[in-house]
């Protein structure tokens, strides 16, 4: 894993000292809230419905055991004993007191973490594939480039006051598990004719009020010029992005209104002026950063094989866990393991301090001290030997973390919604809980197969509802919560935006509505091998609309 150098240490500790003084001055009455608000937001401190909320960056979703233990310590010491992992691979604490925040930031700095740029109109935490550096289908480990983007974008003087926030995601694999096409900039590793690896660059993707799939602006940018190319895009956006209307300020609107070709011409002009200049990334520097992400010292487990069919007979819960939660590793004898934070009846993405500590211990013993956070609000043990799977599973059972539902219908993305969020119009968590209870039976989930439900409590779409195979959007209508259902969204390399099916449903009717959609899918699929999204693409809206609203 990356370790802070002296520049990282200095800028993080300087920021802790600076913000500590700002908090002191605010409490002493020397700063008004109007003056203080932008300062606290620059340090990830929001005010939500019930209390402050501190959002902490987890760059490219990678944590060490030591860092996760510190998050557990913060949860227990300064908060209410739990944290919430988000779709940005970050963690949020919902109950910090203002006076404690400097101490929290100081604790974070001691394990090379911070909350800088987790709010504001700047470049936010860079996100990536949760299986980075482990996946068998990977062309390149994206984390070194993710780290370089983190360094380039941290406190970037030109891009600290953009028209609006800016999110970058990258993936080094053929399959996109990071939703890169729904980011302001999405990067997908690409091989050129000479067999060299570079990046396909997508621009102008996003969710929220105006969902859009990112457009390919350059099919191949070599590593050495990537920062210059990103800087060129940001510069064009910073110059022409709309500042008159918050709802039209994201780069997706600029690209949409001006046209990709026009924006591309501007970007290429900037790029031509910068190419080969100070932002050129020397191979030696890329090598130096890459060394931090060298593969761990794997043992020779080449002969180990998973016999899921056998395990399912011996212990169905364990067999189900293996079937759903393991992911093929590049190294024979190892797997990556998704640790679901979606127990039936729980709040998606929440983990207690005790669970974080259990994960840290398990990772230390069985996954080379590494933990990942997925944008689907789960944790991942990236490198687990097949021979250790039973021991890991038993440890997870003890910690209440052994839900074997990864990728199934109860593995939902869910924003905090109106239970916490000051922007929300409707609750999300109880909707997820209602659906999870409805489909709790493992046999039912297995029958349905891979299905992604994503729930947002407002149009800002933190719950990625547009990208759900089934999306649920909470709105307020005449003082009550109402839920619109969309179908056909997809956050993979085949990205698409879901379509609204018709009038919304009251909260208690949502699980029934989902059941009708699922039953329609089961009735119409060509075989159990045709997943929901493929069936929808073949069938179109009609059978699903009919299931929800009848054929009248």
């Amino acid at each position, binding site marked *: 894993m990356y370790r802070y150098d002296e520049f990282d240490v200095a800028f993080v500790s300087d920021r802790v000292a600076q913000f500590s003084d700002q908090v002191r001055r605010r409490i002493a009455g020397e700063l*008004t*809230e109007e003056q203080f608000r932008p300062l606290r937001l620059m340090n990830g401190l929001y005010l939500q*419905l*019930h209390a*402050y909320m501190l959002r902490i960056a987890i760059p490219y979703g990678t944590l060490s055991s030591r860092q996760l233990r510190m998050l557990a310590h913060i949860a227990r010491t300064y908060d209410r004993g739990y944290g919430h992992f988000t779709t940005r691979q970050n963690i949020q604490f919902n109950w910090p*007191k203002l*006076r404690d925040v400097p101490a929290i930031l100081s604790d974070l700095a001691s394990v090379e973490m911070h909350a800088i740029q987790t709010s504001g109109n700047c470049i936010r935490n860079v996100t990536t594939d949760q299986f980075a550096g482990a996946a068998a289908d990977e062309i390149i480990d994206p984390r070194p480039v993710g780290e370089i983007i983190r360094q380039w974008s941290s406190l970037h003087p030109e891009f600290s006051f953009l028209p609006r926030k800016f999110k970058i995601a990258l993936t080094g694999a053929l399959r996109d598990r990071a939703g890169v096409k729904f980011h302001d900039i999405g990067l997908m590793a690409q091989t050129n004719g000479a067999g060299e690896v570079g990046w396909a660059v997508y621009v102008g993707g996003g969710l929220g009020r105006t969902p859009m799939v990112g457009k390919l602006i350059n099919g191949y940018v070599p590593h050495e010029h990537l920062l210059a190319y990103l800087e060129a895009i940001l510069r064009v956006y910073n110059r022409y992005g709309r500042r008159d209307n918050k709802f039209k300020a994201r780069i997706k609107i600029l690209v949409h209104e001006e046209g990709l070709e026009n924006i591309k011409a501007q970007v290429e002009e900037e790029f031509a002026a910068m190419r080969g200049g100070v932002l050129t990334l020397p191979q030696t520097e890329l090598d130096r950063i890459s060394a931090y992400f060298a593969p761990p010292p794997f043992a020779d487990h080449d002969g180990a094989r998973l016999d899921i069919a056998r395990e399912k007979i011996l212990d169905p819960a364990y067999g189900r866990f293996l079937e759903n939660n393991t992911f093929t590793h590049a190294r024979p004898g190892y797997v990556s393991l998704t640790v679901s934070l979606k127990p039936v009846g*729980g709040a998606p993405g929440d983990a207690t301090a005790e669970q974080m500590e259990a994960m840290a211990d398990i990772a230390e013993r069985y996954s080379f001290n590494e933990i990942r956070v997925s944008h689907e609000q789960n944790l991942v043990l990236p490198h687990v030997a097949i021979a250790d799977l039973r021991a890991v599973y038993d440890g997870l059972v003890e910690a209440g973390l052994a839900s074997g539902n990864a990728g199934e219908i109860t593995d939902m993305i869910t924003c905090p919604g109106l239970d916490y969020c000051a922007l929300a119009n409707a609750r999300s968590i109880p909707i997820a809980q209602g659906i999870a209870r409805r489909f709790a039976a493992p046999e039912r989930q297995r029958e349905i197969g891979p299905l992604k439900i994503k729930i947002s409590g407002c149009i800002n779409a933190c719950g990625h509802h547009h990208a759900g195979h089934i999306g649920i959007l909470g709105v307020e209508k005449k003082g009550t*919560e109402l839920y619109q259902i969309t179908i056909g969204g997809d956050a993979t390399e085949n990205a698409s935006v879901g379509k609204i099916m018709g009038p919304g449903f009251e909260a208690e009717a949502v699980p029934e509505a989902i059941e009708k959609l699922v039953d329609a899918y089961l009735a119409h699929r060509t075989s159990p091998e045709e997943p929901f999204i493929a069936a929808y693409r073949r069938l179109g809206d009609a059978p699903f609309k009919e299931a929800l609203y009848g054929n009248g």
Partner: protein
Amino acid sequence: MQILTANELLSGATVYLDPQGRWVEELQRARVFSKDEAEALDAALAAAGATGRLLSLETEIVTVEDGIIHPVRLRERIRAKGPTAPRFPRQHLDEDGHVSL
């Protein structure tokens, strides 16, 4: 009818203006401003802003039935009691439990 609500500076806790000009945790102790008390409401808002200890000052529409205050918006009902799923108690005022106008 309206009430005045805010979040307190140190704890971030939800608070309500009571008839004695104090900011308290309990919704049912909130001062209810009738339609013809607009001036008093404006004065209270201005005074609250001047304390520098209250964030997100808002007026909320309520109904009162049998002496019980009911915020019209669900958002406000959740703010008064804390998250619903899982149910967590609301945030409490910390050391600064006595903000007054």
